[in-house]
């Protein structure tokens, strides 16, 4: 069974770029447009191997989703953050909330692919 990866990003373009980068590895990809939907998807798919998470989103941003997931006991799933170079304090907070790793946007597709492969592998 292929591993499940939830992609949480409000920008459809960004989600497509992520999907384009990692779909070759045969994951079951689940999209969510904000933190709220991300949490719902995470609840619906408890066997998720990895969450790729944007930080800036309407309704519920990445940090809020991280902390909620943690308080709901869903923090065991590794989170890979996507962030811009101007947001070190967000990365710091996300790390404190247990995010496994982060990648600077705009990302290099091959690097994202390698990161997702390693982090989703580590979950199992």
């Amino acid at each position: 069974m292929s591993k499940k990866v939830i992609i949480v990003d409000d920008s459809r373009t960004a989600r497509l770029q992520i999907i384009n980068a990692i779909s070759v590895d045969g994951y079951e990809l689940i999209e969510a447009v904000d933190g709220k939907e991300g949490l719902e998807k995470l609840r619906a798919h408890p066997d998720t191997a990895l969450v790729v998470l944007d930080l800036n989103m309407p309704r519920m941003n990445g940090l809020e989703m991280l902390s909620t997931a943690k308080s709901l006991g869903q923090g065991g799933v590794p989170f890979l953050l996507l962030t811009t170079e101007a947001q070190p304090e967000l990365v710091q907070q996300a790390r404190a909330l247990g995010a496994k790793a982060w990648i600077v946007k705009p990302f290099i597709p091959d690097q994202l692919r390698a990161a997702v492969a390693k982090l989703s592998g580590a979950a199992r």
Partner: protein
Amino acid sequence: MPTGPSRKPYVSLGFKLTIPLVLVVAAAAIGAYLGLVRMARSNLFDSKVAAATMVTKLFAASVSPAVVFDDDTAMQRSVDDLARNEEVADVEVWAAPKPDAARSPAEPAAPQLAGFHRGGASGPLAGGTHVERAERTERIERDDTKVDVIEPILDPQGGVVAVARVRFTLERERAALARLARQSLFVSIAVATAFALAMLLMLARVVVMPLARLERAARSLAGGGSAGSERTVALFDDEVGRLTTTFASMAEAVVDRERRLADRNGELKLILDNVSQGFLMALPDGTLREERSAIVGAWLGALPTRATFGDVIGRLDPNARALAELGFLQLVDGALPLDVAVGQLPRSIRRDERHFELAYHPVVRGEELERVVIVLSDVTAEVERRRVEEDQREFAALVTHLVHDRRGFLEFWRESTALVASLACPTADASLRRDLHTLKGNARFFGMSRLSALCHALESAVAEAERPTLRAPERERLQAEWTATGDRLATLTEDGTAFVELTEADHARLTAAIVEHAPYDALAQLVAGYRFEPTRRSLERARQIVEATCRKLGKPLPIVHVRDDGLRLPPGRWSAFWSTFSHVLVNAADHGLETESERVDAAKPGPGNLWLTTSLEADELVVSVRDDGRGIDWERVRAKATERGVAHETQEQLEAALLAEGVSTKSAVADVSGRGVGLAAVAEAVAAMHGRIELESAYGVGTTWRFRFPSETLLEAHAPVS
């Protein structure tokens, strides 16, 4: 001093050897002493016993006649003679005892015949009793103080007639023995002490001292000094000597190796001090090793001891420090593949006017990250060179455009200046994204790659954060970029629109008209038209945009068919349209025209075709763009419109959706197109001129855009076009 792996307290080998040696020697001395005393005593006492026996035998012989004849006087005389011997303590002569059967029970076995007792020295020999048995042989009883000899006194026939008992004192022998013991003790102690000292001296010289020297030399060597300060010469060819020799050669080898290492380090340092790149080495916790190239100090100033990677980045760019430190933590975490984690570290940093590039080389042993080698390069000169080259290239491109198409260029210039001014305005503007997009496209067409790249970056930033305005630094950067270019072109663009452009054909036509005496009105109209721009120029620019875009996308160049119908248009009024028109062209090149293989698959022979025309139809001016490319995928537009919440029931609604902002059929934003912004800008420009847009497109066949404008747009506007 405790050294070596053991934690036991240090006890000197000399001490360890001294204790058992002293014990052994003392034991030997005591043994020898006791043996000597015992031997002397035995010798002395044995001689005494022999002498006493002899004296007693002589006494027994001499007293025998007096006993036989029962002459008491003679008997006592013999006793007294014997008693003159100082060593004789007691003498007793007893009659031979009668057999028990021959005497009555009350009668003593035998009476004492004579006796002598020296004053109180000892009691009666027989304890006041008689001799029990008449022994025929002598008997000797000895203890530490005396020797008793019991000797039978025989008659001439050999019968025992009496028994003599003589006690000799051992006083003299004991005194001699005590003297001898003292001497022996003294000699034993002296010999033992001398022996022990000699042994210790030998041990110290042969074993302990050489070993101590070796230990000091080894310690000195371990402490980084040379072993030479300690004398490590073997005294004897024995185990210690060989150990010393071996150590000496080992120390030499160590010192030699250290010298060679120091030489090599010196050479490496020489290299590090003279390279133009900054080499630094960081431990996994981010702490920097002291080994680094000298130029790092020149660039960053003296770093504190135990400086960290963050310190280095902080000196280069305080803003980048936090992210760099986080990046380093991530590298060490190992959650990401090494090369990916390295990819998140800052690569280039700008400090004032200087540009630095950073490269990272993780050093891994097994699975463990041991070090990260950081290479810092000052690329200011390279960046400056590239900038100058780019400037020159851009300038050459601008001048080329200016020379070949002065009016077009100046229109672009005026339009872009207005766009930049609008973008640099801090108030929120709904057209921000469109303006950026238009400016980007125009800048690219006129070869201003830096401005175009800047616009692209700003577009991404704005889209990412969904901001309605640019940030202050972004506005300043845009304005600065534009002003810099403007300054350089100032002399060329001054009074840019204050001229009339005439082609040779125009000139020939005018000449002919004059020669042919054309009517005055016709001449006036002809000359008035010179102030207008021929649409051919705009269409030629359009051709260039399509071709440049195709080149950029790696597509084969299409065959472009241009038809202008000799039309001219008032420049000020049309510049906004022509400026946004480029989006239609870029879309045609990017979305419409196929790649070579796509055309083969679609059974379309040869390169794609593009028709660019301006014409008068009834009272309307029509600008049209037609391609025979892949056409619009209306299903996809419908999906996009659904996603964006835009009406999409009828074809009109679909066309409107296509022109709505934010709808793009591209799945990824590229440098060229895909943001869904361009067509919206075109629609706005057309609407501003009261024009209409017609669109015909069949999927797989091609697309035709017609922009229809009312006739008044052919005339110069009285008021400036907004």
